[in-house]
């Protein structure tokens, strides 16, 4: 059963939080990833190390920030370091376990577009661009992608590869790259050939409804089931978190 008390985005946050393991170092973006990482820290991974690309090490925010450079993130952090040092000496050398990325489009290999809809030179819609996303996709040990699922977000081919997923010839040989995709309809992993594969369905969805929201023939894991509803602990922690958050926190998923 779907939980009427949580919005679809909040359910995505609960699912994503479950994918984080204790003591991991997570490079967190604003919006849903930030909410998910903070939820995990309050439910099952209190020693999660939150790192922000603005150069913040081990943040312990009392409330959720609007941007990744907000004072609320800096005030209780272990330290701030130059972006160059963060990217060079922590991200590039494999010290970031998990990167969280969102975007406007994803394809079946986990290629993400957050740059442009339409041609680059003559955009229909110009989006924000990479920021650190391409760098994070390249160097984080494991990626979690979060975005709503419909034909607009899941096209057969993305208009622009901002952040590379698994290469055409198979999974990334270094064992890195997209590991999970969390949407409002389900949870996906990637098979041995680097193709996205349905693992868990949102309780309100069926294979048919999910396929209709996907721009390519969906691969389905043999053990696919519905995802487990939020536990009381998850629900309570999320409610507390969201009550400390600016009203439109979900704007920038």
């Amino acid at each position, binding site marked *: 059963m779907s939980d009427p008390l949580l919005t679809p985005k909040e359910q995505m946050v609960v699912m994503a939080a479950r994918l984080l393991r204790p003591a991991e170092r997570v490079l967190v973006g604003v919006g849903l990833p930030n909410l998910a990482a903070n939820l995990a820290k309050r439910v099952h991974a209190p020693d999660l190390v939150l790192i922000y690309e603005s150069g913040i090490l081990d943040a312990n925010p009392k409330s959720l920030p609007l941007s990744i450079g907000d004072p609320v993130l800096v005030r209780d952090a272990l330290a*701030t370091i130059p972006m160059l040092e963060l990217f060079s000496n922590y991200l590039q050398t494999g010290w970031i376990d998990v990167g969280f990325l969102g975007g406007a489009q994803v394809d079946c290999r986990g290629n993400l577009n957050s740059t442009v809809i339409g041609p*680059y030179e003559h955009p229909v819609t110009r989006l924000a661009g990479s920021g650190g996303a391409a760098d994070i996709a390249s160097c984080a040990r494991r990626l979690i992608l979060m975005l709503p699922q419909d034909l607009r977000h899941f096209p057969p081919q993305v208009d622009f590869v901002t952040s590379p997923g698994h290469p055409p010839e198979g999974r990334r040989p270094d064992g890195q790259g997209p590991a999970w995709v969390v949407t409002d309809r389900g949870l996906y992993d990637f098979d041995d050939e680097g193709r996205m594969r349905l693992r868990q369905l949102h309780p309100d969805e069926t294979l048919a409804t999910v396929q209709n929201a996907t721009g390519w023939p969906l691969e389905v894991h043999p053990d696919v089931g519905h995802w487990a509803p939020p536990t009381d602990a998850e629900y309570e922690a999320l409610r507390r978190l969201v009550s400390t958050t600016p009203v439109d926190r979900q704007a920038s998923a």
Partner: protein
Amino acid sequence: MSEAVARYIEDGQVLYLAGFTHLIPFAFGHEIIRQHKRGLTLCRATPDLLYEQMLAGHVAEKVIFSYAGNPGVGLLPVFRRAVETGAVAIEEWTHFEMVARLAAGAAGVPFWPVNTLDNDLSRRRARPRVASPFTGQLVPVVPPLAPDVTLLHAHAADEEGNIYVDGLLGEMREAALAARRVLVSVETCEPARELRAGRLTLLLPAFRVASVSVEPWGAHPSYVLGRYDRDTLFYRQWDAQARQELAVEAWLHEFVYGVADRAEYVRQLPAGRLRTLKEAALI
């Protein structure tokens, strides 16, 4: 500040207005608009509302950047219009590439290695790879970025012009060291003795700084850690306002062209909001 901008900023230059979320030099940006500079190349990892306003003020012909969003709010309407209509040229990088380009500029070397994988941005410019003469390993490299002038806002300067900051540095230090000339505005000027005993740290020695202006609230609506908080309301409101060209024009007339300097800008802001931002910073 008016004098520094008149003296050091020339039409057609490459400028870097530094500061990542924190310490964004809005006072400098407004002064550049007021002085009707033209043909500038504006570099920033995040153009932010600062370059929104400078684009609306027609000072730029090109923007070099890596993330053109309004964090937590959405996109940058003025920037987006300018790109979609071709009114401004863009050159786009990832964050790491952008700070690596500054690092190369700051070190005076002709390239900097960055291990980010190929993507459609790097493929568009056929990003070159260099072979290690030691192992043969190929590594992508980016070219240096050395702005003509870097402008930045900081917490404080001492009598000699040394510059001190606290909190997020982002790409400030590299952007400053990559430029031959650095213009700085500060919240306050304080005795060196007190600054060195306190918790601020040195950003730049005086000999790296061409000019220092004391401009309280010089980073509003961004923030100065411990002095005033980020004006998130301003960032939210910009999104709706900036979708209409006329509204942006009106804003510029009221807050940029219509004021002589930063002090007058600050007097235009609601006193209650300033108080709130100050109090929030002291938590």
